[in-house]
Every structure is written in structure tokens, then in C-alpha cells.
């Protein structure tokens, strides 16, 4: 692996602690794809997923892993941010209930408690899902369970949780010996969106460097999909604490969800989701797509 020339340094803020959702990034790193392109990527995990986009907007980091719904809100709030790549191209969010619990369909939620972790738009998702079954938010009780989404559900504190990831919480419950039932948001009236995206500050970003970054990432995804077992070994190398049953299962379940063409942008899909966000009152108006998404040539 050539390390001779001066590299371009990039600070990348993850959305949350290192987990299999970040697999392509780590495979690219471990395989030396970044280095081959004269990139030196420093990956930092925050404790609060809301911080990375802010810090990128403030010029304190070059790239952040963030969420598409948040992007719309952030740009509407005036943050200089633009999506330039996609990591996970489908929603991961679900509404999760216990399989042998009383909730069989979303309509059964009437009068029940739904836990959420304050992220900013869970209530909007829920409102859209409930609307298809003739319910409103007034028909349920929303409880902020902050740090304990699945414990709250397993311990019977709430009847459902919104914001659970299909690749994690379902496996988590299975490991604990509970079977879960997931209502996938994109099947329940919410337009499909990219769960994990890469954002940068359009005012400062170096398009050429980011393009190289995306190329390396694409190599990472390719390798990951082609060699999942070897990739797993790469992922846990030096990160022994990640080597557990849950991550192994999540790894498997996340594989099909990675964007194989990280640089590609589906403009119509983004505009459709922006419209949804506006209808839910989360953003005042749908901006033109150039204002929040970029395709790097």
C-alpha cells in the first residue's frame, strides 16, 4: 500500500458509535482504498447523532454520516449542508412490536403507548403511518424512552417503539429470546428514503477530494458485498468489542441495504420525500434539490 506521498486529510464524523451500518467505510479503510487514493480519513464517533451535521456545517469536520430526513430539516434551518453520497439506500426505521403482543396491525395501536427516542421526526413518521389506518397521534400516547428503546418494549413499559432499526433491534430481541414484529415505514405510507447519507459543507468542500473518497467507498461496498466473511474479519480487527452475536447478525442483515453506487442521486425520490416532510409540517417549503444534494462529477 503506497504511503509515500502527502495525503489529503478528511475528518469524518460517524452518526453514532461504530456499528455494521458503517461497514463500507471500515472495509475501505482496512483494504487501503482510501490510502490508494491519497486520502487519510479520521473517523470519529459522537455521542449525540445531532452533532455531526452541525459540526460539518460549522467547518469543524469535512464529512458527516447523517440521515436523509434530518438533512431536509437541517437545510431548511439554514445549515450549509449538502448530501454528496449515500451509505444505506433504504429506510432502516421500523415500528416495532412484540410478535405475541396485543398489536397485530397498526390499527391495534389505538389507545396504546408508543415509545420513541427524541430524534426530531419520529412523530411525523408515526402520524403518516397511523393516518393510513384512520388513527391520529391523539389516539395513542407517545412516551420518550430516550436511552432504552428495546428494553422499554421488552420490559412491557410500552406497546410499540418507533425508531427501531430493522437490522438491529429485531436481532437484539431475537437474541434475548423475544420475537418481534416490524412494520416497515416505507410499506406503511412513508415514501422511501436513504437512511444513511454522507453530507458535506457545500461552501468548503473540495469536490475532487470527495469524489476520490466516494470512489474508495464504492470499492469498499463492492468488496464487502463480494466477500462478506473476509470483510467481517476486517471490520472487527482491532475492535474486539464489536465481535458479538448481535453485530454478526446485524452485519448479515445490513449487507443488502448498502448503496452499491454511493455517488448516485435519485432526484425524484429526494423531491418526493421533501414533499412528504413539508406535508408533515417538518419543513416550511420544498427547496430545489440543488440546495441540499450534490452529484460529484
Amino acid at each position, binding site marked *: 500500500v503506497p504511503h509515500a506521498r502527502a495525503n489529503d486529510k478528511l475528518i469524518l464524523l460517524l452518526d453514532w458509535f461504530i456499528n455494521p451500518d458503517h461497514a463500507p467505510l471500515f472495509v475501505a479503510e482496512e483494504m487501503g482504498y482510501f490510502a490508494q487514493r491519497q486520502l487519510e480519513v479520521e473517523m470519529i464517533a459522537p455521542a449525540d447523532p445531532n452533532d455531526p451535521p452541525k459540526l460539518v456545517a460549522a467547518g469543524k469536520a469535512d464529512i458527516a454520516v447523517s440521515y436523509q430526513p434530518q438533512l431536509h430539516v437541517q437545510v431548511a*434551518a439554514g445549515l450549509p449542508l449538502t448530501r454528496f453520497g449515500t451509505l444505506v439506500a433504504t429506510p432502516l426505521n421500523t415500528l416495532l412490536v412484540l410478535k405475541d403482543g396485543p398489536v397485530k396491525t397498526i390499527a391495534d395501536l389505538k389507545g396504546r403507548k408508543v415509545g420513541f427516542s*427524541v430524534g426530531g*421526526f419520529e412523530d411525523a413518521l408515526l402520524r403518516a403511518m397511523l393516518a393510513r389506518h384512520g388513527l391520529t397521534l391523539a389516539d395513542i400516547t407517545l412516551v*420518550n424512552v430516550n436511552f432504552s428503546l428495546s428494553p422499554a418494549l421488552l*420490559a412491557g413499559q410500552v406497546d410499540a417503539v418507533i425508531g427501531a432499526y430493522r437490522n438491529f433491534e429485531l436481532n437484539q430481541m431475537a437474541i434475548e429470546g423475544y420475537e418481534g414484529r416490524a412494520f416497515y415505514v416505507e410499506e406503511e405510507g412513508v415514501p422511501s428514503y436513504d437512511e444513511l447519507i454522507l453530507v458535506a459543507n457545500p461552501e468548503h468542500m473540495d469536490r475532487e477530494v470527495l469524489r476520490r473518497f466516494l470512489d474508495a467507498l464504492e470499492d469498499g461496498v463492492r468488496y464487502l458485498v463480494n466477500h462478506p466473511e473476509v470483510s467481517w474479519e476486517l471490520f472487527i480487527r482491532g475492535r474486539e468489542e464489536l465481535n458479538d452475536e448481535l453485530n454478526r447478525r446485524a452485519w448479515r442483515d445490513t449487507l443488502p441495504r448498502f448503496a452499491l453506487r454511493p455517488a448516485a442521486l435519485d432526484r425524484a425520490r429526494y423531491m418526493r420525500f421533501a414533499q412528504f416532510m413539508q406535508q408533515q409540517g417538518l419543513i416550511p417549503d420544498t427547496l430545489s434539490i440543488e440546495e441540499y444534494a450534490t452529484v460529484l462529477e
Partner: protein
Amino acid sequence: MCYFRPLIIAAGLILLWQIIVWLTGAPHFILPAPADVAIAWWTNHMAILGHAGVTLLEITLGLLCGTILGVFSALVLAYFRPAQRWLLPVLVASQAVPVFALAPILVLWLGYGIASKVAMAVLIIYFPVAAGFFDGLRRTDPGWTDLARTMGASPWTMLLHIRIPAALPALASGLRVATAVAPIGAVVGEWVGSSAGLGYLMLHANGRLQADLMFAALFTLAIFAVLIYFVIDNALRRALPWQPDRSTLQKEE
């Protein structure tokens, strides 16, 4: 003058804040300017005040229970040697438990009502009270306890008439610290899972990138903190008139 003080203090805080904004040029979504926050406050003042009421209730209950628990712990610690060996380490260890570890447990036992929030606030509030009072109880002038012993004091009356009054200034010190941390105690309590309160509002605003609203809530909380602190500080001074207490040392020199 005395009544304007809080206003002046608020003005001072705002000024400081504006200066920081100017000096550092922090972007508005990380540190909004006071004017933006004022607008956000005014637009949302009903919501903010509603949430503030909840938080105020939690602060009050937290302070009340925390003080009672703290005073009680200190007495037990001071009076039973085994307690000091076994309870004190537990109390100290309890201070090292972060919210997210405790939150699910508290919710499991106490549910999502106000109880779990108050419990969390109490965990933060009681320690300064207990530690301060315990320190005070350890430091009683031996002359007084000797005198009381020759007067035939029982452990109970010794406590009531000698040790506790003598330790009150130290308890007051602890209470001052507790009062200052009570608001954050309530906010941390709200992280345990809640649907109301300034902490919830801040978390929510943070999630929606409404930095101005978050800071409006934070400012409200800070004003609370300062007001409660000065009310309690004043009450404590009045309650301990025998205690030498120069609010400032400047004049003397």
C-alpha cells in the same frame, strides 16, 4: 434595587452571551445570538412556560427529597461506624452511575411518571447535601460535645441540640451546591424518558435543529437556577444568624 437585581443579572448573562457570540463567531445553529433566542422565546413562550412548570415541579420535589435523603444519609453515616464503612462507598459509587445505565432500571421500577425523573434528580442533588452535612457532623467542636456529655446528653439529644445545629453551616454549604445542580438534575431526569419539561423541550429542539428554541429553554432554566439559588442562599443566611458571614470581604481591607 433588590427587586431589579434578577433583571440586571439576566441582562448581564445576555450581555456575556452576546459577547461570546461576537468574539467566537460561532454559527447560529450551534450558538444562536440572544436576539434570535429572544424571538424564539417570545414565539414559544406559552410552550416554554408550560414545560418550565413541569421542570420546576421536578426541581422542587428533587430538592425536597434530595435534602431529606441527604440529611438522613449524613446522620446515619455519622452515627454508625459500620455505615461509614459500607454505606459511604455505596453513596460515592452511586455518583459514578451515568443516566443511561440507570434510566431503564428506574423506569422499570418507577414507570414513566414523575417518580423516575425525581429519583434521577434526587441522585444528583442528595450527594452534596449528604457530604456537606456529614463533614459538618464530623467537625463538631469537641468542647461542646464534652460539655454535653457531662450534662448527661443522650445520643439523640446530643444530635438534636449540639451536633445538628453546629453542622448547620456546613449543611447550608452543601445545600447551596445542591440548589445549583438541582435544575440539571431535573433535566437529566427528563432524559430518562419524558414528554414534558424543559429538558424534553431542549432535547426535542436539539433534534429539530431549533438551536434558538433550545437556547430559549436553556435560558429559562438558567434563570430558574439563579433565582432558586439566590432565594435559598438568602433563606439560609437568615436561618443561621449566628454564623459569621461576610457576603464580601472587600470593605474590610
